[in-house]
């Protein structure tokens, strides 16, 4: 019994969709009928079976197609993957973390055999079978961070910790929402979050930094963030904004269900053992409105959240052009009944 990997696209003809089982495991991010910023960090521990938290590094039915999309992004724009010279050791740390987690959680798809520094890695879904020397960059086809993140869903930011701050000094960022690694690389925690409205004044980043710099090895943490995307496009980079921005004008009452997606980021935070860096995987999950409304509680709640969202947040998340159309479409699925507390579908 393994994962049935879908063959689908996140560009051009946009054939991405979720199977019914995958809809049920979507990490719906609102625990009540309203949304406001909060630090909302919790321990990243294994969760219920058939949820995205079942394994600490989640692999799902979109894995193979997402990795193909990443390879296309990198071929067009190699600057999406950058690592400052002092971050190579952290790259090896990340490679070890992802290989060991994947091999332990999904033995039918991945295997890792270690004899001293000689490592043998098999990634069956992507058809990779490599033997290399851990710590020797010349034995891999890419740097260690690039090598393993070409095989791992989600973006990855690696943060160096020094001077009581975190520094965005390496990353593989191909599915980002409105930030550029090439621009932000080398910035500290407050600098790269500088454009976020409201949250600085609320002290969110000061508290978050304090929490993150205290993360211990073996005790990762996580939080959810969300935005919306028109079409199931993974590469919503600012680099290509002039190519995809006009998607936002294409939403009509007839196509909301197919075109408008809730985009949830599962962000997790891990201390790396050798480098003492933090790695910050940002995993993106997409859900079509047609798929969302198959869960009545989520349909009611998302209608209320989107309708009542503060204007600044809607603007920052880029929802302004299609928010009203989407709210009206969702209202058909909201009979005003109360919703149960918590994230679960009921």
């Amino acid at each position: 019994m393994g994962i049935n990997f879908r063959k689908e696209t996140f560009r051009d003809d946009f054939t991405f969709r979720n199977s019914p089982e995958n809809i049920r495991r979507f990490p719906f991010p609102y625990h009540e009928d309203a949304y406001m910023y909060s630090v909302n960090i919790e321990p990243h521990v294994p969760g219920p079976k058939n949820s995205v938290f079942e394994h600490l590094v989640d692999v799902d039915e979109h894995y193979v197609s997402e990795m193909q999309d990443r390879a296309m992004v990198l071929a067009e724009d190699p600057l999406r993957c950058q690592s400052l010279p002092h971050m190579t050791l952290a790259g090896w740390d990340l490679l070890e973390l992802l290989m060991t987690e994947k091999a332990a959680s999904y033995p039918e798809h991945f295997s890792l055999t270690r004899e001293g520094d000689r490592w043998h890695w098999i990634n069956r879904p992507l058809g990779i079978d490599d033997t290399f020397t851990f710590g020797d960059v010349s034995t891999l086809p890419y740097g260690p961070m690039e090598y393993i993140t070409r095989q791992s869903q989600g973006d990855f930011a690696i943060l160096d910790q020094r001077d009581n701050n975190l520094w965005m000094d390496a990353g593989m960022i191909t599915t980002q929402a409105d930030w550029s690694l090439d621009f932000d690389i080398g910035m500290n925690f407050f600098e790269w979050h500088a454009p976020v409205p409201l949250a600085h004044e609320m002290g969110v980043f000061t508290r978050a930094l304090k929490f993150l710099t205290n993360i211990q090895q073996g005790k990762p943490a996580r939080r959810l963030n969300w935005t919306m995307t028109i079409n199931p496009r993974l590469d919503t980079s600012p680099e290509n904004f002039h190519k995809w921005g006009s998607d936002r004008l294409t939403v009509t009452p007839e196509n909301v269900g197919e075109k408008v997606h809730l985009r949830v980021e599962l962000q997790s935070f891990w201390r790396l053992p050798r480098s003492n860096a933090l790695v910050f995987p940002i995993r993106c999950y997409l859900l079509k409105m047609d798929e969302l409304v198959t869960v009545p509680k989520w349909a009611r709640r998302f209608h209320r959240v989107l309708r009542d969202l503060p204007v600044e947040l809607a603007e920052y998340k880029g929802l302004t052009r299609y928010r009203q159309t989407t709210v009206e479409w969702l209202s058909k699925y909201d009979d005003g009944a109360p919703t149960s507390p918590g994230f679960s579908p009921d």
Partner: protein
Amino acid sequence: MKTILSRPVYGTLSPQAGKSHLLIADAEGASAILDLAKKAPEDFFAHAHIMFIPGRTGDSFQASLKALKPAQYYEGPSVAAALPRLNWTLANAHMGLRMYLAGTEGLIGQMMQAAIEAGIDPASIQTEHRGSWARRIQCVHCKGITENVTTQPATCSHCGLLLLVRDHYSKRHAAFQGVCINAEDPTEIPQTEEIFR
């Protein structure tokens, strides 16, 4: 003025204890050096190197700067032209060199970049903004840098896209970020205003 946390905060130049002093300014930045001189010990400029890029101020500051009698005085047409000399100076600098940067954000940012690459602690560098608030921007799309941007929006001098000039600033690029302002609807052409003066 409301600012954001990625943008540098500039101070006021004041003479520091040190064996030698490297003072770099463009345009009205020269007046910050002249003001520092009023507070400086007598032998300060005997160990000073002034690098000056007059820009829009033409020849209005040269005589006063030279009258400070710096050990070395340089005048150049642009930051790009001055960088080889700066890099040589930093590479051959001794312990106890103090750096002072004054003028536009573009000058301060680029000189700071060169200093950081040479291993100088940025916290030890004095900066003061004077003169134009013209911005140096990196186009997030084509990655080209456009100098001396005074308008919002601004046209990328490389790819021609109409860019929203953001306040988000990268010290590594010494530039603000420019993002296509009409990506959602390219037929919308917002009015251009001269706001970074």
